[in-house]
């Protein structure tokens, strides 16, 4: 028996690699014969680009449907990268999520995702929630439904401070929603580290500080053009380059997540 892990990938800053991490981590874990679904909770719907899916799915085929009040277990999971793995799927997000935001003003709406997964459980070993960058209601629904959090950040002052805001938000939201136990912070992923001295200095400075506080740090993953190229080709990094210096960091996170399934 394995325990389902529901991993919310969130940040306090935009463009730090949440979606990149969601799809690549999803792929890495699916390759280990685990069943993985990625829920795109971002109205931007960037996963549609990352996996080259239809950009305008009907609203009821997107994650927005979960919040519609009509959801009856219709998870529209589209298999992706079937040439390489056969147990990875995506529940598409995108603009319909804008429309359901008013529903999230109430506590009932905030708990909709959690309720859905309790009432209509999925057999997946791992569900990844790819969240939008702003700490508003959609990430809150993910927080309520998640068992674990993974927090990518770029080593710049804005993103570092974003993690401070996120931690505050996390503690406050858990308290307000009375989440017991709180979703566990799996760790921070330092991503997209550029060669410049300041990125290097900040990376070196923050790693021990997170660790001192009992948080695991993955990476650092450097800035590689391959990530952009892989997006362009709409394939995971490992398919784009079978060996790549960023893969060990992804494997480290993969093993940590798989460890949580037992």
């Amino acid at each position: 028996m394995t325990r389902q892990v529901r991993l919310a990938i969130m940040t306090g800053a935009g463009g730090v690699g949440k979606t990149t991490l969601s799809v690549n981590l999803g792929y890495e874990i699916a390759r280990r014969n685990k069943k993985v679904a990625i829920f795109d909770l971002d109205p931007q719907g960037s996963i549609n680009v990352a996996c080259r899916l239809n950009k305008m799915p009907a609203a009821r085929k997107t994650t927005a449907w979960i919040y519609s009040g009509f959801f009856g277990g219709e998870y529209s999971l589209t298999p992706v990268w079937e040439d390489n793995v056969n147990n990875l799927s995506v529940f598409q997000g995108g603009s319909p999520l804008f429309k359901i935001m008013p529903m999230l003003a109430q506590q009932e709406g905030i708990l909709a995702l959690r309720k859905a997964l309790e009432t209509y459980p999925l057999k997946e070993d791992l569900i990844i929630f790819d969240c939008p960058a702003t700490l508003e209601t959609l990430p809150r629904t993910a927080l309520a439904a998640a068992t674990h959090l993974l927090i990518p950040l770029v080593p710049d002052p804005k993103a570092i401070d974003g993690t401070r805001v996120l931690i505050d938000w996390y503690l406050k939201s858990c308290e307000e929603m009375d989440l017991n136990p709180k979703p566990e912070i799996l760790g921070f992923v330092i991503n997209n580290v550029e060669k410049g001295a300041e990125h290097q200095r900040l990376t070196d400075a923050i790693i021990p500080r997170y660790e001192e506080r009992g948080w695991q740090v993955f990476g650092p993953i450097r800035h590689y053009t391959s990530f952009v190229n892989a997006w362009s080709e709409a394939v995971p990094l490992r398919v784009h380059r079978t060996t790549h210096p960023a893969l060990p960091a992804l494997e480290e996170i993969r093993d940590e997540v798989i460890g949580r399934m037992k």
Partner: protein
Amino acid sequence: MGRRKKVNVDDFFAEVDQTSEVHTLRSEVQTLKDQETELRAQIEKLKAEQSNPEDVEQEIQRLREHLLESQGKVKFPISKIKRNENQPRQSFTEEVEAMKLSLQQEGQLQPVILFEDGTLFDGECRWRAAPELDWETLDAVFMAQLDPKELRRKAYLTSLHRKGLNALDKAEALIAIAGDHIEALNPLEVPKIINRVIMRLKRNNSALPSNLQTQPKEVQEKHIRQSLQDSQEIELFLLYLGLQEHPATLNRNVFPALKLSSILKQSVRKQGLGCPQALLLNRLDPEIQRQGIEAVLKGQLSIAQTKKWIKDQNKQEGKPKFSIVEANTITEDDKEQIVREATNLKALNLEAWQNLEVIAKVKQVQRLLQEIKELT
């Protein structure tokens, strides 16, 4: 220009620690309250089942110990203790006599347990016996004492010794605390009240000592009661001094943050824009505020650099849109300049003044001069 100081990540982490601490404190309090609720439920249950009085007594003892441990006891005036109307027993004579003896000989061994409003939960004998010995207070512990208001004050105190709180968060927390603790006070009025009092004290040459916030409570009380009359003002000042905040400092450095525009507030909260810089930018048009935020964050501008940026903006725009008070003193030069400019204007003929824009400005100057006259 010298080397600019790079961001110190310890600042972020100090704030992380501080918020975590407040949340831990809050959940600890919650746990204590839960334990208390459980113990109380147990007592109610035993009582309802008409269990052996000794069992009930034992359970009450556990609750008392729990309360002592979680909050400590206080000396509470006997006159303010109220009898619990739900107490079924009416006659206490014998026990009261015995208790009187015990109190006299051994003192009060166990604190009484009170509800928040002073109603007795346990300890009726002690309460009846003590006045007969002319006691005025009893040691007491309270149930459900730590309400959210108290929590807010405590949370503020625990975060006080860290530098993490920015002026905006501080100001908002402080006015909320005032609203919690002072009856019939509109929290939004707090900055005005503080400013009014500080100004009045200054006019009367009776400003508060600068280190009053670190003085013992009695010293604070003495000063405040000497300087102020209005009971609400007194309460407010004592509350803040009790939080180790000096009202004059709040007035100067903290409360002004409440007047920031919403984009500046957001930037202070989410992007780490410094409050002093934000206050400078607050005087600009919203359009330019946005540019200012970007410039300050990108260049990590100091206060002086921010002022300079605003000045440079002025130059570029041709005519000044805004001004910054550079220093807080007026020099002879300043005085002369004002008189000189005014004299120059006198040389213009009246026609040159008849332009709508000029008229508006002149009226403004007239008003300002009047105000200055009143102030000096």
